[in-house]
């Protein structure tokens, strides 16, 4: 395989179908629409299911239906559409069904705008709908990583029978970069043991999330919590740069993490002992590694394209042991490396600066 120049949205779409996605349901919304458009052509070519739904509400429930049949299925949207999908995502999660949801985040709240943002961090990591659960959330920082994490998203969804959200900001969706696509995986004819295929020669199968008795609902909740504990133990993902001897640590994910890397590289060239920690899984938050790094640095700067949402997870992880500062831009504004450099320089003791 060779690298091709690909737009993020197209790369995610193509990676999804190569990962064996059998059914896609979506609704147009900027800045993710190219994803839907690519699949509108490709899925029928491959004899697979593509449908533009009448709303995001319908789209996620079509995904819910397709997931009941045991095939790989996906939808994609951006903030306002993800808001509408909250109900369906909660039902899917509560039915132990795997599926992938792509959120190409835009500026909000409200109608907001179509520019890149990370304002959906709370929405996607905290529960994605009502009730006690978290989806697995993965955040790419490049088109190549978006491809790789799309494949991983389907694998994790199937492995844990759990909802996985690919949280890409609008920059990742709209940017073109060289990336290598994976080979096409064969579709399996086999369906998992929960799949609704018609009760021919077997007992009926039923998929629901309805427990009238408190004890039964609590037992089911404990089952979800046990799964989340396994996910937290096994699926914390992150990458890091210049952390070995770092005394200052920047924490940023997605495009904000990537922009912060430019600032860190420039300061490193000047001899400033700064490193970057970039979470790849937003849920589970990579707290084990961050806690280790926090013990070695004198201060942490969290950089996000929002008002400080992952900041809360950093605080929960690091507690009061290390001072935590924040730099963020909102509403579609993208920080440039110099802004992050300046924010870092303010944290440095004078003797390091001189």
């Amino acid at each position, binding site marked *: 395989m060779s690298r091709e120049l690909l737009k993020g949205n197209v790369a995610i779409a193509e990676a999804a179908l190569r990962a064996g996605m059998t*059914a896609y349901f979506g609704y147009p919304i900027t800045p993710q629409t190219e994803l839907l458009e690519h699949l509108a052509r490709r899925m029928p070519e491959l004899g697979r299911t593509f449908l533009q739904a009448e709303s995001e509400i319908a789209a996620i429930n079509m995904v819910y239906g397709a997931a009941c049949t045991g095939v790989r299925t996906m939808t994609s949207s951006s903030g306002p559409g993800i808001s509408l999908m909250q109900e369906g995502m909660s*039902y899917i999660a509560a039915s132990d069904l795997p599926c992938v949801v792509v959120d190409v985040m835009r500026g909000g709240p409200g109608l907001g705008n179509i520019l890149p943002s990370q304002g959906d961090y709370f929405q996607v990591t905290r529960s994605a709908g009502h009730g006690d659960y978290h989806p697995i959330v993965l955040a790419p920082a490049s088109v190549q990583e978006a491809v790789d994490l799309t494949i991983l998203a389907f694998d994790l969804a199937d492995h844990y029978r759990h909802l996985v959200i690919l949280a890409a900001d609008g920059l990742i969706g709209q940017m073109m970069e060289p990336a290598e696509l994976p080979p096409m995986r064969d579709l399996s004819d086999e369906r998992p043991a929960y799949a609704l295929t018609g009760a021919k020669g077997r007992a009926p199968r039923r998929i629901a999330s309805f427990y009238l008795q408190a004890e039964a609902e609590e037992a089911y909740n404990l089952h979800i919590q046990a799964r989340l504990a396994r996910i937290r133990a096994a699926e914390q993902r992150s990458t890091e740069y210049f952390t070995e001897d770092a005394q200052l640590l920047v924490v940023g994910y997605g495009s904000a993490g990537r922009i912060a890397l430019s600032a860190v590289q420039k300061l490193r060239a000047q001899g400033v002992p700064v490193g970057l920690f970039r979470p790849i899984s937003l849920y589970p938050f990579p707290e084990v590694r961050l806690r280790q790094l926090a013990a070695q640095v004198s201060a942490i700067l969290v950089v996000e394209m929002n008002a400080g949402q992952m900041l809360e997870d950093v605080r929960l992880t690091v507690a009061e042991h290390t001072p935590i500062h924040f730099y963020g831009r909102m509403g579609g504004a993208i920080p440039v490396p110099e802004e992050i450099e300046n924010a870092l320089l303010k944290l440095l003791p004078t003797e390091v600066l001189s």
Partner: protein
Amino acid sequence: MTDLLLEPTTVPMETVYCMPQALGSQPTHYCPGCTHGVAHRLLAEALDELNLRERAILVAPVGCAVFAYQYFEMDGCEAPHGRAPAMATGIKRVQPENIVITYQGDGDLASIGAGEILHAAARGEAITVIFVNNAIYGMTGGQVAPTSLTGQRTVSSPFGREGVPLQMSELLSVLPGAAYIVRRSLHNPANIRKAKKAILTALKVQQAGLGFGMVELLSSCPTNWGLTPPQALQWIETNMLPAFPVGDYKVLDAVKEL
């Protein structure tokens, strides 16, 4: 002692009535006098007669029929309120060989799920919708529905419902994707027999891949109407039939040939 009574009968007995295979034996939670049980039985009988049980997938609603997936002896799932047609679309598109059925009440289908049912019908999704219309929200305790009659007093329309009931069969019948849309009633045996025939036809429409099919069933809610079961059946005849005339609203020519 009369030995006659102890003599075994030698004449084989013919089974004239039994539980349909497609219906489980567990008791339902429906109120006494509610016609959901009749609707369940008709659907199960029709599935048995067409030998479709092992191919069928039921999408249950939120509402009084929320446990329907438990009562039928076939694969089933539970949709969010009003979203059954979208869920059914997802299932049917992936597995067109299955017979996909939604079972929905009037709050589910005509209110919160009005968008989903409209677009499923417009797309001509090859699914079968059993629409149970009792002009009220049952499970939540008798609130006004879009199908409530003008002036109908409910716990959320204590001074009488304003406006006119939404007639879903009439509304959906104008869509080209709709192949078979009829309204029947469950208030007496003659109408129940006609309802059974309509459900059979609707399932055949899906088997033949002719498009979207829906059977609306006028149904009773004695509990929330504040009536006895016999009074409730009379209420359907007196009050619902004028607002919701039974009849065939859309029957494609191809359906008549089935």
